[in-house]
């Protein structure tokens, strides 16, 4: 593989995508190029000096990480990498990489990476971000394990839960870094997805779209009697349980669960449920506003658009509004 192709491929890896072409040309020769034939394996042991950052430049490979006596496999495509966390933390992670087809890998050891960081400190920016995410996952694991030990659960259950955590951690430690997503996708999806409002917006849009589509299909094909939840009673007309009631139930359940301590993942699930619940409620806004079952009213759409706009502001301009509110609050206090 010629150096120009290596430079081009390194430029698509998130660690190096901020470098200029001339800088890429200067870092490319620092990598050792390894060629693996189909089925050929590369082993990296648990000695710190053996640790390598490996970036797959072409072909395809399978990564095998053995942790706690269990082998975990992931496949690598061009641009994917593994080994940087072990290299930076000095906590070795032995692994084996087997080529699925003829492949070329770029490899760099700890000393090489240190020199690279010294000469091209811009590489440290994305690396620090990735390290933070990794460290956060470990801190979560420490916390969960501390809780398990502190709760004094029965010994069998504790052992079983610790084994489960071990499996989850092994999967995290064997995670392959994928090729960097495109800038727009990263700005719109990857960056805001850590915050609950993003999941609220996703839940809202998904539920609203599904509800609109379902009701449209039911009304279009006259399936009301079969598919609407109609509960007969002593009245001449049955009670139709409108889907805003299911939405309210979802919002209430998410709100109650969120009052008690949560993990980050649970928070995202609850934020999604909340958004989905709001989507169902706003889809039938006109119904409960007017106490009239006429579905096709513009006020539902207007209310839904306003709710979606508020959520989008929270997701993409949350910091701006927060800063504005803080400045306003300070001004108010000063005025008083």
């Amino acid at each position, binding site marked *: 593989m010629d150096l120009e192709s290596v430079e081009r491929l390194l430029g698509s890896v998130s660690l190096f995508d901020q470098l200029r072409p001339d800088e890429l040309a200067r870092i490319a020769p620092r990598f050792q190029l390894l060629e693996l034939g189909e089925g050929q394996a590369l082993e990296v042991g648990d000695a710190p000096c053996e640790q390598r950052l490996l970036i797959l430049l072409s072909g395809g490979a399978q990564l095998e990480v053995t942790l706690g006596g269990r082998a975990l496999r992931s496949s690598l495509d061009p641009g994917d990498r593994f080994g940087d966390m072990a290299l930076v933390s000095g906590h070795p992670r032995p692994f084996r990489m087997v080529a699925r087809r003829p492949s070329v890998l770029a490899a760099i050891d700890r000393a090489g990476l240190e020199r690279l960081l010294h000469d091209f400190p811009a590489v440290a920016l994305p690396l620090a971000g990735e390290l933070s995410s990794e460290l956060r996952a470990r801190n979560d694991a420490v916390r969960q*394990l501390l809780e398990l030990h502190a709760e004094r659960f029965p010994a069998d259950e504790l052992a079983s839960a610790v084994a489960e955590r071990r499996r989850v951690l092994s999967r995290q430690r064997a995670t392959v870094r994928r090729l960097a997503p495109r800038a727009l996708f990263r700005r719109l999806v990857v960056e805001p997805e850590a915050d609950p409002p993003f999941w609220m917006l996703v839940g809202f849009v998904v539920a609203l779209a599904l509800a609109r589509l379902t009701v449209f299909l039911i009304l279009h094909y006259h399936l009301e009697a079969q598919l609407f939840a109609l509960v007969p009673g002593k009245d001449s007309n049955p009670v139709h349980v409108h889907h805003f009631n299911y939405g309210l139930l979802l919002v209430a359940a998410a709100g109650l669960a969120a*009052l008690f301590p949560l993990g980050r993942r649970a928070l995202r699930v609850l934020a999604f449920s909340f958004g989905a619940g709001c989507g169902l409620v706003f889809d039938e806004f006109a119904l409960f506003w007017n106490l009239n079952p006429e579905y096709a009213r513009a006020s539902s759409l207007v209310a839904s658009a306003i709710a979606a706009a508020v959520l989008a502001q929270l997701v993409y301009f949350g910091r701006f509004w927060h800063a504005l509110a803080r400045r306003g609050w300070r001004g108010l206090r000063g005025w008083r």
Partner: protein
Amino acid sequence: MAVSRGPADPRLEVLRRVGFLAVLEDQALAEVCARSRRVRYRPGERILGELESGAEVFVVLEGRVEVSVESGAGDRYRLSELEAGAAFGEMSSLTGELHSASVDALTEVEALVIPDSEFDRLRERRPEVAVALVRLLGERLAGAERTVDELLDGRAREGVALPAGGARLRRGSISRAWRELVVNRRRDLGFLAFAGFVATLLLVRALVYLSFRLGVMASDLLRGAYLTGFALLGLSAASSLLTFRDPARRVIALAYGIACALILNELGVTLAFDIFFKDIHTADPTVPFDIERLYRRTEPMRAVLVALLVLVQAAYLRRFYRRAGFVLATRTRRLWARLCGG
């Protein structure tokens, strides 16, 4: 919390002790000081809360702070204590993720708050800060990996449980029951939601009863009550997902209980209003629209009973359910593994 924007910070010496700022020379440190704000916190005041979003970086200039996390059962565990020269919040600034622990002032604390934009600018203009951060985070990651391995191998490192206010054991009496069931739980979120629910339910039922008896504004009152309930439920549920400060969450829990009561009390109205319509396009002329008839349907009472049951469980029995759920889940997982293995 008192905020002041210092002219030139005399404590550059403290900033030089912060690992990732130590690489900067005095002039750059002075610039960081000038672009940041100094904030004072009183003992016990929360500086940042677990699961809150926020991307500012804090440097302790004076005093001591405590880093702690809350367990699923509601206990608080102290992770560490930080003194002058320590920094926190830099991970959230790097990733934009939510804070993974709470930080509270143990003494009078003076902190330098570096805005996210300034920290971004600093990392981009002075990449050696990012390199120092990589080294610092690498060391922390290695430490966390070692701790995880120790804990997985059963060498439990005890988190220091912070003292929780508990009732002294005394003989059974009504006053003890009152103290344990109400007074000691007055800050518990589940209890506040329950209390808000019961109080609002009684109040609204009394108001609606009076308005029907006097024949004034009954339909406006009912419509106002359920619409307020919808809005309050949405706002309180959203806030509970976005705010993690204790005083704010107590207000949120109360609002949540009030919202549930307002909605469930008028459930007959919002659930069955279309019994007066033949279909979604035609009002049924044989059944005149009567909001009092809707209000007197029996569904609300059943729903209120279910809600009371859920809120009582949430207020008094959630620890039991958590333990029971944990044991059940692990036993099911073991049984499943045995079945799959077999």
